[in-house]
């Protein structure tokens, strides 16, 4: 068994935390896992990517074209990491945009949403776009955008654990004070993606 989950986004979006919990649920359930993180320059508004790999894996990095799931915390980042995907890859894409400062300052153009969505849909049929940041706000705090997206991954049925196993882990790793809102966010994302996938599969 080999399962490859790729996370891409921007420093400050909680990607490392998402990756850590995705790793922790594996350890809690006796599944081998490797989680690679980007540190360093990432804190200053740069791109952050994480590779989460389950099962018979030895390399910390997912080979090109072999992600089972590409979770983009920001739409442009889905396309930037497109080489990791193939036509069967599940895409979970947060539609909330974060403009690089080069764009906000008018030095570069941010592609229109339609263009981004088109491109991604051309690659894979298994695509869910969601406003994860909005779903997180509904859960109680935009900071939990990461858990909305993790909830989405759990709706795809590709992981060797179920939702309840994840919730047990989440409760173990998060301080009680913030567990509730994170759980809420996780469930929001999970439901949204499940509903989206239902008619197509």
């Amino acid at each position, binding site marked *: *068994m*080999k*399962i490859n989950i790729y996370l891409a986004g*921007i*420093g400050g979006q909680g990607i490392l935390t998402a*990756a*850590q919990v995705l*790793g*922790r649920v*594996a*350890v809690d359930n006796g599944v*081998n*896992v*490797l*989680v*690679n*993180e*980007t*540190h*360093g*320059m*990432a*804190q*200053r*508004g*740069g*791109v952050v990517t994480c590779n989460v790999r389950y*099962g*018979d*894996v*030895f*390399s*910390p*990095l997912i*080979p*090109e*074209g*072999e992600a*089972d799931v590409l979770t983009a915390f920001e739409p*442009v980042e889905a*396309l*930037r990491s*497109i*080489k990791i995907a*193939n*036509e069967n890859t599940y895409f979970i894409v947060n539609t909330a945009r974060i*403009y*690089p*400062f*080069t*764009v*906000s*300052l*008018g030095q570069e*153009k*941010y*592609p229109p949403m339609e263009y981004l969505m088109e*491109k991604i849909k*051309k*690659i894979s049929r298994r695509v869910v776009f969601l406003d994860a940041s909005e779903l997180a706000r509904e859960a109680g705090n935009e900071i939990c955008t990461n858990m909305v997206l993790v909830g989405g991954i759990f709706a795809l049925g590709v992981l060797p654990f179920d939702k309840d196993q994840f919730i047990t882990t989440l409760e173990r790793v998060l301080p009680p004070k913030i567990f509730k809102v994170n759980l809420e966010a996780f469930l929001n994302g999970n439901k949204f993606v499940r509903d989206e996938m239902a008619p197509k599969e």
Partner: protein
Amino acid sequence: MDDLISEVIGKKILALGNEAIARGALEGRVDVVTAYPGTPSTEIGDTFARIAQKVGVYFEWSVNEKVALEVAIGAAMSGLRCMTFMKQVGLNVAADALMTYCYIGHRGAHVIVSADDPSCHSSQNEQDNRLFARFANLPMLEPSSPNEAKEMTRYALDISEELEQPVMLRTTTRICHTRGVLELNKIDIREEHRKTEFIKEKYRFTKIPALAWEAHTRVLDVMDQARRISEKCPFTTTEEINGIDESHTDAHDRSDASRDASASSKIQDGFFTDESADSGEKIGIITSGVSYGHLKEALESLKINARVMKIGMTNPLPDASIANFLKSCNKVIMVEEVEPYLEEQVKIIAKDNDLTIPILGKADGHFPRIFEYSIDIVRRGIISALGLEMETKSDNALNVGEMELPRRPPTLCPGCPHRASFYVSRKINKDHGIYSSDIGCYSLGLLPPLRAADVWVCMGASSGLACGFSESTDQPILAFVGDSTFFHSGLSGLINAVHHNHRFVYVILDNSTTAMTGHQPHPGIPRNSFDEIAPAVDIKKIVEALGITFIEEVNPLDLEKTEEVFRRAMDHQSVSVIIAKEPCTLLKLREMKARGQRVVPYNVDLNECKKCMKCINTLACPAFYIRNEDIRINPSMCSGCGVCAQICSFDAISQEGEAVL
């Protein structure tokens, strides 16, 4: 309870490679840990800053890597078990101590962690410190996974004790920053860190020139002994990898099935057919470190059978084991990142054993000598080395056509005081000035529109370089240095400038922290590695003591005052020092939050704004954005520094937004 100090033996935890090294040191009963922060090694120290006091270990963030090494050398000479860690370029700083230390050794145990950074994720070069290990006669281990990093750290301490010689643990970014499953062994939790007595022994650690040759003889003997250890090293393994065996394929691979099928048929058309296997084609592969993981999966996907030797102890090499391995193969492929370190030595071993089998690697261009490796790169290298006619998977990668995506370069945070210092420097000196920069967040001053970094070389170099510019040009010269970097190694260049009367403006960007690596303390602030009160060393007093005649302290967020100070400094006839003092914005925001205070963001009055773009074109704070030609400030990003408001020629920017947390 912190898993990293759990006493439950056999417990499985998820931990970062760097945390694994910290745990391994604990399992190896480490007493003293020293370091200077540097990516990708920093989290080892962040871990010790958190746990050292709970387990009775002495830890310090030292002033620089050389001192960090020396502190641990002192402790190891006293008989304690020590660890010093640093990023790859840190070893250059520590090298002077290291070279002679390796001659004389110690009486305790000492592992030196060198965290190398192939692909330069956060470094100015990708030097391969395995060459240092050879140069210095430093026994070396290379982990291939986080758990192995833990086990090797413990093992390194043990063989260091046996050899009375420091041992290097050479990791790379992808080991340091990968989380894996660790299985815990025993640790001793102590009340306080261990102390011992330094035992005097005539000439043991004082190698006067007349005795230095003796020490050289000693280290050569030590390395002979180390070679015997290397031959038996439990981390060096040989295994048959049966890529052709289909048994590993499972349900999940189905999505890739079509592609895999086409790949394997192509292999059969190419070099590695079943017949050639029967005819006794035996492919050997020698590897070390993180490349081992890439290699295993590459072989599996290429469906190639090979015999793989993973070398765990890579200095000194287990010559006899390698020779035996070579004898069992018809051709050998070398898979290692960066320098052909193993490749060149393996070729010598082959020659010494009269073996003429092809040894394929970097020399003949099959594998790159730059960048870190991945499964894809290793796959391509093997295909090239074996002359297979097949496409690599990545060549099949999705054809998405041309895409113009906006880049996302890192930048100084909104409200970063460095931005203000750079703004003023450029306003005065424009492109005529030479901006000698250094290593830290402020290296990002390179980017437009600030463009306040023409050169940077290594930690502390901005002052020395400025001395050179001052003798080679008559342009105005500004040298920038962070507070932590000033203490690390900026001071010597400044002393040199005073004595030789070089003329430039030395701007010490004092933001009260080591920001780039995640806000570690340094000697200039009144807190130690555990956030306890500690004596602070006053930068201003140091500079005054040098006899410098122009020293001004200014808050860079006050542009008018800052400009006035900079102008006077530029006119000064000898070296001048400006201390631009204002805490890192991230720290400031964190403290405000802790006190329950809120930021009141700035706001652009669209009626007053003339869209002259001055703020955008000269300051470029990332909190700004443009929508429908209107210039606006994102209130959730603005830190309220007020610099933009001081720049605006039309008073269109003011602090009247609502407070946000």
